[in-house]
């Protein structure tokens, strides 16, 4: 069971990584990052089957941090939308990317 769960987590993580690298919409990129974090959660829960409760407790911290990150991240996306009227990262070239 653990092998399958770890495989699932690795697949989710890779999908998230590709999402960040390929997609150009800031909100979709952010969603892909959240997918990465949740892939980590799957791995932590799987490992805690082997090593005890620590991993599952860690999952709560990860979820809390993801929520805090979402709050600040969406605020930043709104503030950039006010300047550019778009959230496509290809358009943000005021600074040399």
């Amino acid at each position, binding site marked *: 069971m653990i092998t399958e769960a*770890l495989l699932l*987590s690795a697949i989710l*993580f890779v999908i*998230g*990584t590709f999402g*960040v690298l390929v997609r150009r919409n*800031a909100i979709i*990129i*952010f969603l892909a*990052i959240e997918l*990465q*974090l949740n*892939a*980590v959660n799957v*791995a*932590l829960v*799987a*490992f805690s089957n*082997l*090593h*005890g409760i*620590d*991993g599952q*407790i*860690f999952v709560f*911290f*990860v979820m809390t*941090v993801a929520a*805090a*990150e979402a709050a*600040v*991240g969406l*605020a*930043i*996306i709104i*503030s*950039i939308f*006010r*300047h*550019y009227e778009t959230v496509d*990262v290809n358009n*943000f070239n*005021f*600074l*040399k*990317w």
Partner: protein
Amino acid sequence: MQLDFTQPLDYWWALLPEIILCVFGMIVLIAGVTRSSLEEEDGDPSFSHGAHLGWLALVGVLLAGIANGWLYGVQEVGDTSMIAVDGFRLFANWIFLVAAALTILISFAYVHRQRLQAGEFYSLILLASAGMMFMGGARDLIVIFLGLEVMSIAVYALTAFNRHDRKSAEAGLKYFLLGAFSTGFFLYGIALVYGASGSTNITVIGSSVSEGLASPGLLSVAIALLVIGFGFKVSAVPFHMWTPDVYEGAPAPVTAFMSASVKAAGFVALLRVFLVAFDASYATWYPIMWWLAAITMVGANLMALVQSNVKRMLAYSSIAHGGYLLVAVTAANQSAAAGLLFYLLIYTLMNIGAFAVLIGVARHSEEHMRVEDYSGFGWSRPVLGVVLTIFLLSLAGFPGTGGFIGKIYLLQGAADAELWYLSVILVLTTLISYWYYLRVAWFMWMKDSEAQDQHDLVQAPLPMQLALLATVAFILYTGFFPGVTIDLVNDSVHGLGNISELVPGFME
């Protein structure tokens, strides 16, 4: 006083400086919303309404410093608690507190002039510093992760703080997306370390790795992922792409803060994790660190040569300094760890000092950042000119400044580990860096001003003068009399690993 961490209250005592900073962060935040900070627009930037909040934040930093000094008298029992109470952490705390204090001092006029929300600004600086202190003191990967996020989220917000400026918003978005992306890698690395060793405690991981209980395959992947995560935070080449953009776009005091203490926090946590938890798998991460250090030093110094914007040049310079510090991580012995702490302290002071003058020249906005804007600056504002020249010489590593002693000390660590190639690269890239630092100094002293009144509007109010005086004094003091500081850093690194002695001349 002894702390054995059997009772939860012991953690409260061990975390006293962090708690004080968090409490003051919230007090400043609440005090900031009780009155509109847009009153008294024309008041003195050092003492108007927004400035009260700045002085209040400074009181918080001072109290946290007192608590940190008090912790020197506290002994911890055992070495598996989640929070370390050792010299390494306490010295790292000094660096973060000094950086926070200096950042607040140089922000007064900027916050006033740009009409930033003073309460949020200062409280975010305090909270970010608390996160850094958690990172430096953590002996558990969960705490490191939480500290990293407390720091990062606060700094994302600080980067995008100037909402009227589209550059600031863009820098904030870039920093946020890449920072969160790197957090994903870091976290996956932690999950795999936990899977391989069965614990998140650094000391426990260390013993299970050295007893060979951890599965080596899983561990190597985990180390690679952790290197990527830390690499983004300390902006090592090739994970540096965000750095120049973000440093250029962020408000200047925030850039000073980021380039000094965010980097310091990354390095302190990196050193503790790799020296204590992964000392037995040195052979796995040694080559990775070696190449990161070499590419970072060469790449960043070459790219800094072609910059015409001083703020962007300082961004590349900060990447290059990260490369010098990676040499110390690669060397992984006591003298290198001491050198890393010493260099981080000096680097924090000289970098924030240089940015302070930059803010003055930019007249508290984000203009006047070209090298040409400095032509004739030295002759029309002699004091500021001399001060900036000292900072530039120290950044370049000129004898008689703290930067020189720091580099010597890093080289000492590298020589103890017999890293001859890296030492040569360090010296050669330092010589390259003389060009772009001295170019600014050359414009300041050897060129005539472009216009008669070019530097009339340059401002350096009282708090900034205080910050400049303190930094210049300390840099010259350590440049000529480094003894006291060196004794202190040497005492601070006891208990960390000393692994490269086990494998002398490894690979070289």
